């Protein structure tokens, strides 16, 4: 179905082709029916092997025929001596090899080869590995062959460092080989784990350990030790200086620059006497209902009902609950709260002192260096020299988007606030040289601007988040804004206040004038929200405003310049929908 070019042909040619196909069809059907008949009769013999071979040679995707062959082989195994069985399976391997030559991308052939290898009395893994070498030399991106290679490596205990050298060789002969870079990303963490992870001897064999040799480099925070990381930087740099437009090396480089998974912890506990509410923020989305979350007040475990910030989220970084009436409402009493996350054996305390209406205890983004690279501080000189190299390359290749994007990432790893202005200019370049992905760049730039603003806010120790006129196209990191009371998002390009917005549990004043907002889904159960200004947006239907009805303290609402203000009877409709609003501007 792939890559068959349509050719124009004359009526006569058509007729000849038709006749030929008819003939082929007849042969095919005769053989197929003979096979089905034999199988139906339970015949497991050499003739059946012959017949299935005939069809599989040209049609290796006919999976049932491979199944039949396996049934036959399993049967013959039981009636033959080991030597004969060995020969039988070796012949099978030869046949599969001929199929792979015709069609190197058939799932059925590769799976059958793995199956045969596992049945062979005396497998020859060296031969299998050299078959992979040959196959990859014809097509170094054939993922079936790569997967078979991993199977062989695992079964025969090829040392990890030998496989790493294999990728050295492939990358050395052609940098543009995504499959090899990918393979490196799975091998390096095994060979050179980050200090603190379990040690592994460099030549550890897979056969005698039961650890998975292919643990995911994404999920298991399998990171690479710093020494090796520096060597990898050098290798990648060679690659992208040689061929700056080859994306493989750049993707790999971005992974190297990435940070490890955040630890799973409770990042904030917030308590408010008013409404006797508790909000808990986690370092990643969790399902608190399934995680054994426990709330202890003054030494007493409380029966509370946890709910995520928005009913849309089964997994959320922010969870809320109400304490039984009278628990913490009296301002003259001091209270100690502890939230236990039993599944992760972690907890966080929060003290609510007399005379205080609210209290919190948290790790801030600045404490955690949330938005920085994972490289340790003393190695910033390394990142600095990486940045210099990329800057050099950019002088040679001013239009190279990969280089520009990498420079942005390095600048963020080094000093996100110090480089803010240059970063913005680089984003402008990216949108110009790669307009097809301009929305991606806008969203990424928005994310970085939000991160910078969070850092600035926390350095200033305020609860005001102001990010107006910054071309924001999307909102993110809203779980970091749990304690924010005032937010200004005016003059951006926001289309929606997404459900995540409901994590701004302390929000009192929202300004979001001059955007293109048409959806307020996230203004949901914000208990302290009093003022909302949404001038000059795209809110067009009364129903778009319904989420606001769940915010009990809302008194001021500015909707001037929205299509919805043209709705008939709008004033009356709104006073019915939002009875708490006394100051309505239309």
């Amino acid at each position, binding site marked *: *179905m*792939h*890559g*068959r*070019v*349509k050719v124009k042909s004359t009526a006569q040619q058509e007729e000849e082709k038709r006749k030929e*196909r*008819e003939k082929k*069809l007849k042969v*095919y*059907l005769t053989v197929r029916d003979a096979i089905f008949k034999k199988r139906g009769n339970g015949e497991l013999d050499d003739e059946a092997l012959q017949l299935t071979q005939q069809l599989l040679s040209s*049609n290796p*995707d*006919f*999976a*049932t025929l491979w199944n039949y062959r396996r049934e036959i082989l399993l049967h013959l195994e039981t009636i033959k001596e080991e030597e004969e069985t060995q020969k039988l399976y070796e012949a099978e391997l030869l046949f599969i090899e001929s199929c792979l030559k015709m069609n190197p991308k058939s799932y059925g052939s590769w*799976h059958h080869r793995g199956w045969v290898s596992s049945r062979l009395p005396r497998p020859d893994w060296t031969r299998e590995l050299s078959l992979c070498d040959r196959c990859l030399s014809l097509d170094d*991106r054939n*993922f079936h062959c*790569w*997967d078979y290679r991993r199977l062989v490596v695992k079964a025969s205990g090829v040392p990890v460092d030998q496989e790493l050298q294999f990728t050295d060789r492939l990358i050395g002969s052609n940098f*543009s080989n*995504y499959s090899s870079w*990918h393979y490196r*990303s*799975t091998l390096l963490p095994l060979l050179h784990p980050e200090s603190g992870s379990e040690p592994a001897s460099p030549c550890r064999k897979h056969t005698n350990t039961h650890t998975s*040799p*292919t*643990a*995911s*480099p*994404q*999920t298991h925070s399998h990171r690479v030790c710093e020494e090796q990381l520096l060597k990898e930087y050098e290798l990648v740099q060679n690659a992208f200086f040689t*061929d700056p*437009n*080859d*994306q493989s090396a750049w*993707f*790999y480089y971005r*992974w190297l620059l990435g940070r490890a998974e955040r630890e799973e912890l409770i990042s904030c506990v917030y308590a408010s006497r008013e409404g006797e509410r508790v909000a808990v923020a986690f370092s990643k*989305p969790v399902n608190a209902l399934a995680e054994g979350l426990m709330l202890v007040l003054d030494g007493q475990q409380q029966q509370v009902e946890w709910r995520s910030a928005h009913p*849309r989220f*089964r*997994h959320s970084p922010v969870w809320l609950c109400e304490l039984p009436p009278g628990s913490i409402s009296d301002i003259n009493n001091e209270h100690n709260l502890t939230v236990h996350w039993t599944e992760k054996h972690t907890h966080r305390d929060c003290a609510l002192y007399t005379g205080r209406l609210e209290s919190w205890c948290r790790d801030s983004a600045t404490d955690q260096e949330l938005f920085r690279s994972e490289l340790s501080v003393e190695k910033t000189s390394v990142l600095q020299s990486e940045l210099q190299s990329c800057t050099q390359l950019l002088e040679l290749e001013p239009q190279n988007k990969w280089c520009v994007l990498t420079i942005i990432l390095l600048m963020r790893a080094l000093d996100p606030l110090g480089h803010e202005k240059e970063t913005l200019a680089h984003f402008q370049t990216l949108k110009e040289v790669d307009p*097809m*992905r301009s*929305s*991606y760049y806008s*969203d*990424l730039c928005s*994310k970085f601007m939000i991160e910078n603003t969070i850092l600035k806010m926390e350095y200033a120790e305020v609860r005001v988040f102001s990010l107006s006129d910054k071309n924001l196209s999307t909102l993110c990191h809203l779980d970091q804004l749990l304690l924010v009371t005032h937010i200004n998002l005016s003059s951006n390009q*926001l*289309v*929606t206040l*997404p*459900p995540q917005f409901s994590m701004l549990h302390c929000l009192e004043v929202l300004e979001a004038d001059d955007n*293109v907002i*048409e*959806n307020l889904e996230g203004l949901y159960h914000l208990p302290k929200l009093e003022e909302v200004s949404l001038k000059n947006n*795209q809110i067009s239907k009364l129903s778009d405003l319904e989420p606001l009805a769940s915010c009990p303290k809302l008194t001021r609402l500015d909707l001037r310049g929205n299509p919805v203000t043209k709705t008939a009877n709008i004033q009356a409709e709104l006073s019915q929908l939002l009875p708490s609003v006394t100051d309505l501007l239309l």
Partner: protein
Amino acid sequence: GTQIKDVVIKPDAPNTLLLDKHADYIAAYGSKKDDYEYTLSEYLRMSGIYWGLTVMDLMGQLHRMNREEIIDFIKSCQHDCGGFSASIGHDPHLLYTLSAVQILTLYDNVKAIDVDKVVDYVRGLQQEDGSFAGDKWGEIDTRFSFCAVATLALLGRLDAVDVDKAVEFVLSCMNFDGGFGCRPGSESHAGQIYCCTGFLSVTGQLHQVNADLLGWWLCERQLPSGGLNGRPEKLPDVCYSWWVLAALKIIGRIHWIDKAKLRTFILSCQDEETGGFADRPGDMVDPFHTLFGVAGLSLLGDEQIKPVNPVFCMPEDVLQRIGLQPDLLKTVEQTQLISQYLHLESVIYSV
């Protein structure tokens, strides 16, 4: 430097959607039963029927297909173990079990088969580590994880398997680029990424995806011609365009590609004479690429086609009928931008 692998769209390539021709092409396809090529593809017939019926339904032409004949055929393909084969005489497999259940769901007639046995079959293929074998011969692939949970979700029986373990296995196939491969350690591939994000959507675990990183890899699949490839340094293809696009939709980042350019590419893969879509402009058409061409245009917002669900690749109205709404990551709903692009498009095509 590296030459970008891509195709050139000729100025005379089709640039309008030829819906009538495509419907005629699919309606006629099943009537060539004596054809050599048709017979050769018998080993995937059940999926072939699903592709044909789904694209007909998306075009509002399902009534032109022979419902009774197809349902009888499906029934005759269910085996004692509960699984379905691609055709009579072939062995059962998860791939064709999903296709059979999808077809019966399109026809609102799941009751025609023994559902409990299907559930048993799927459950029986789950392995210790949570993965699924495609059949009793033990090939493991994240495609089969998707087939398993999609089949069960359509039957409302997701609780029949160990979902937590299944999720754990799929997550162990996540790579350095945020994508997914066939098995732990396998390279990322758009088809597998579609299966794995679809799987995580059905099981309610999309928050485990690194959506920004994966979305970047996916949007970098778009080539200057507008078409999408399935891996770096490969040619664009209509079917990969669907897999990438559907995955982007599932993780809430479909606006990261240039929709107008992709539409141009997909339209150029139509065959004006025979109807149908090919993998690339100028190649032979087939029902597989015809479905993914039409479904892709639907995700891009073409209003002549029914809205398609990105996870199940079935019409949304069909899934609504059975009350199935798989999760999608919610970010910016760029209706604003879509309307801008549709406007732009009408300018381009009126020239």
